[in-house]
Structures are given as C-alpha cells and as structure tokens.
C-alpha cells in the first residue's frame, strides 16, 4: 500500500511544482522586465530592439501575454529545439494587439476605424464585383491580409472569376485586413513619445522609426525611412513629388505600374494644381480623411464663388474634371486662367 502511494508521489510532486510554477512564471516574467523572457535566446534580437524602442516602458507581457496553451507551446518549442527559423507573431497575435494599441492611442484608433484602412477580410477578398474582373492572387496579400498565414487558395474559395466567393475560415470575415501592425512596428528604436507642446509644423515631417510596411515576404516591418520614393512620370515628363519621406509607405500600395506613369496601377500621385503635394498634406494619417484639409489652403469661398468644401472631388473617376488628384487649372477655367490667379498659383509653395 505504502509502496503504491510512493509510486504516485513522484508524478504528483511534479504536477504540483508544475502547477505552482505557472503563476510563479507569470510573476517572474512581469517582474524581470524582459530579461527573463530573453533568457530563452531565440528572441534575443527582438528583445534587444524592444529595449531601445519607443515602447520600452511597456512590459513584454502587456502585449505578449497569451493563453496557457500558447505559453506551453512556446516552452515546448524551446525545450525541443524546434524553434522556427524566424520567430514572429502569428495572425491571431496581430489581431489581439488591436485593443492593446487602442488603450493608449484612442484617437488614432478611432480615425483608423472610421477610415478606409480598417476594411475587413470579407470586404477585400469576397468583393464579387472585383473578383469577377480580376483573378485573386497571392500578391493581394502584399497590401491587405498581409498577416494571413497561407496562400490565397487557403483563404478564399473558389480562386476563379466565377464565384460565389467565400472565406474558408469565416472567422476572418470581420477581422481588419490592414491592422495597426501593417504599418507600425513596436520593436523599433526611438525615444518614448512625449506629448508635443505645440503642433509640429508641416515643414518638419518626421518619419517615426516605428512606421514601416509589414513586408509579408520577410515577415518584418520595413521602415518607411528606407523605402523608396519613386520617380514618377507623366508621359516623358518627370512629375514633381514632395520629398516627404513618409509617403514612401503610401507608395508601397498606392503604387504605379513598372512604367512609373502617374495614375497607372494604384497610383494617386497628384498632378495639375496639386502636383508636388505630399499625400499627408491632405490625408489624415490614420483615417485618410481629407475634407478638412481643403480649408487649410483654400478660402471657404474661392474668387469664383465655388465652395471648395462642397466640390465633388471624387478620385474614383479618373476622368472627372474635379478629380482632386488630377484637376488642372483649365478644368475649372475652360476659357483660360485669369492672369492674376495664375501669378498667385505659381507663388504657392508646395
């Protein structure tokens, strides 16, 4: 009897220690501010980056606290030596980040949520109007759904132009296709943010180190500071574009075809009266809203009596005379631009 009891004793002790060590581990990770996490050397590089990052005052577990199951899986991978080549967040981790980002960045989050970039997987990938015209492809993931693990055929079926299309995993339907981490990297060097006392002037565009496109291929955010600002052409004429480096992020997706012609592909480079303006001169960073920005430069009522805030400035129709990206002086002044106005136009500093 007592021998049998002894037999049970050993595993029971192991179990007890194991159970006790879960809260202990939790406490340990919280209190060690990362060094405990980084002791498992696989995340050394990421840990080093975080230590110098804007978000270094936020403890690892505030973003990475996972379920018990997930933690056990991590430990198992570490012990068994089956650590992946490149340690990275899975799609669920990325979606779990959203409320955490929101906690501190409420306004940015609200703007994003109200803008086009908070679009969902369902709206992007099961849009029958588009899917009939163009075949779904893996390159779609470059700009939306970049965190999805798998190919296009793992996300949508059928991959053809007939449809009807549905997401293989319906739980993706309402998830954001361009989440915070699509353009922001947390583990990036930079000083912790302090609230600026006054508004930064438009002349001082800052590329924050954390801003960078999540490149699905490499599974890392490539900083906007090292992304290319393309040379854009209208026919053979080089188009003047703003030197605002932050646009490099926009150009990754709102990009021209290889010919680099303005307006080709997904390009929105402004031509005509707005040529040379930075994307961010008009578009809010997170909500992309532009309406307010017109009034920054234009008097509410222009000389000719048109209310600029009520103009139909649609960009969806590239042929519209009011297309804000291409409007030329002659579009509104078919009889020629009045002399005085022309002089004024050229004096505007873009």
């Amino acid at each position: 009897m007592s021998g049998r009891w002894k037999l049970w004793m050993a595993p029971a002790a192991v179990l007890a220690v194991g159970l006790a060590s879960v809260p202990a581990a939790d406490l340990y990770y919280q209190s060690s501010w990362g060094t405990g996490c980084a002791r498992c050397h696989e995340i050394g590089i990421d840990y080093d980056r975080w230590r110098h990052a804007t978000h270094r005052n936020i403890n690892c577990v505030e973003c990475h606290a996972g379920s018990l199951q997930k933690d056990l899986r991590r430990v198992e991978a570490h012990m068994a030596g089956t650590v992946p080549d490149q340690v990275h967040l899975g799609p669920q981790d990325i979606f779990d980040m959203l409320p955490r980002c929101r906690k501190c960045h409420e306004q940015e989050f609200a703007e994003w949520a109200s803008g086009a970039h908070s679009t969902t997987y369902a709206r992007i990938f099961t849009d029958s109007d588009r899917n009939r015209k163009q075949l779904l492809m893996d390159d779609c993931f470059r700009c939306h759904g970049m965190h999805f693990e798998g190919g296009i055929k793992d996300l949508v079926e059928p991959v053809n132009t007939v449809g009807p299309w549905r997401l293989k995993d319906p739980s993706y339907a309402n998830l954001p296709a361009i989440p915070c981490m699509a353009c922001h990297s947390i583990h990036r060097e930079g000083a912790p943010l302090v609230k600026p006392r006054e508004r930064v002037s438009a002349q001082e565009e800052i590329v924050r180190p954390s801003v960078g496109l999540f490149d699905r291929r490499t599974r890392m955010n490539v900083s906007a500071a090292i992304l290319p600002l393309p040379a854009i052409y209208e026919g053979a004429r080089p188009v003047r574009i703003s030197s605002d480096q932050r646009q490099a992020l926009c150009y990754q997706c709102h990009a021209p075809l290889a010919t680099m012609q303005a307006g080709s592909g997904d390009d929105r480079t402004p031509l005509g009266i707005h040529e040379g303006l930075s994307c961010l001169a008009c578009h809010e960073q997170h909500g992309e809203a532009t309406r307010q920005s017109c009034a920054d430069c234009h008097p509410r009522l222009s000389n000719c009596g048109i209310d600029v805030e009520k103009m139909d400035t649609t960009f969806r129709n590239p042929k519209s005379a009011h297309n804000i990206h291409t409007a030329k002086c002659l579009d509104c002044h078919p009889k020629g631009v009045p002399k005085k106005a022309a002089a004024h136009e050229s004096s505007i500093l873009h």
Partner: protein
Amino acid sequence: MNVSRTRRTFLGAAAAAAISGAAGCGGARGTTWRVFSGHEARTLDALLEWIIPEDDSPGARGAGVSHYIDRQLSTHFREHRQAYRDGLAATDRLAGGDFAGAPRKQQQAALRKLQRDPATRPFFNLLVPHAMQGFYGNPRHGGNRDFASWRMLGVPPLPVRGRSQYDLTAGGGNAKS
C-alpha cells in the same frame, strides 16, 4: 527605481530560481545567441569585420552577419557547428588568446595564418560564403540588418509596384484558340 518595482524584482528573482531549475534554462547563457557563447560571438564578429569591413556603409558587424550564422548553425548548417567551435578557438589561439581584443596588426597576422594553415583553411573557406550570405542575403535570415547591403548597392528593400487594372468581364484575357 521605485520601491514596488524593486520588490517585484526580488519576488521575481526568487521565482526565477524555481523556474529556471524546473525548465532547465541555464541562467548563465548569453541572451542573444542560439549556438555561440558570448566570447565566440565576439571573436566571430571581429573576424567577419575583416571579411566585410565597415567603410561609409556598415560592415559585417553592423549588418549582424554573426546572427545569420548563429541562426543557421541551429538549423540548416547544424553539421558545421563543430567546425565553427574549432575554427573560432583556432582564431583566438593564432591571435595570442583573444582575437577580438588583439591589436589590428596582430589580427591581420592571425587572419593570414588562418587562411594559409591547412588545418584552419577549410574553416576560413566555409566562413567566407557564409559571411556573404549573411551580408547580401535577405534580412529574414538574421543578417543584412535593415537591408544594409541592399541599400549600399542601391537596391530598394521593396520595389514600388502597383496592380494592373484589367477587366476580364470586358472580354480581356481569354485565349481565342
């Protein structure tokens, strides 16, 4: 440091002892390396800097080439682990004990011996292509930090490419045969 954090650290350290014992994590381990010891990594970094030196753009050290090698030794290049251990030890020996700490002249002499000595030449011949892969290869493998080499060459990390806007319903794109 405030009081509460100090106390938490203390409690944490106590828990750490229990956990690291249970989980088998050696606490003495360096934090950044999968395979190398801290000293080996320092020797390797110094050696790699001779293979791809820093000038007006980063060299092997700045681009994190040793991270590439460390990561591959834990996966694809597993069979070369011993060659690296022996090779780095030999490198130190040729420089009088500590290659990274030796003066440049002494490092250069050691490097020359490393290349010529039939015992160490195979290690050097292994190292050079690995250095090139870590420096010129894609950063996803641990080297070429922030695309340092691609930027040096004038290759943008990502090209600017839009989608072609076509419409298959408008009759485009169907083979006639």
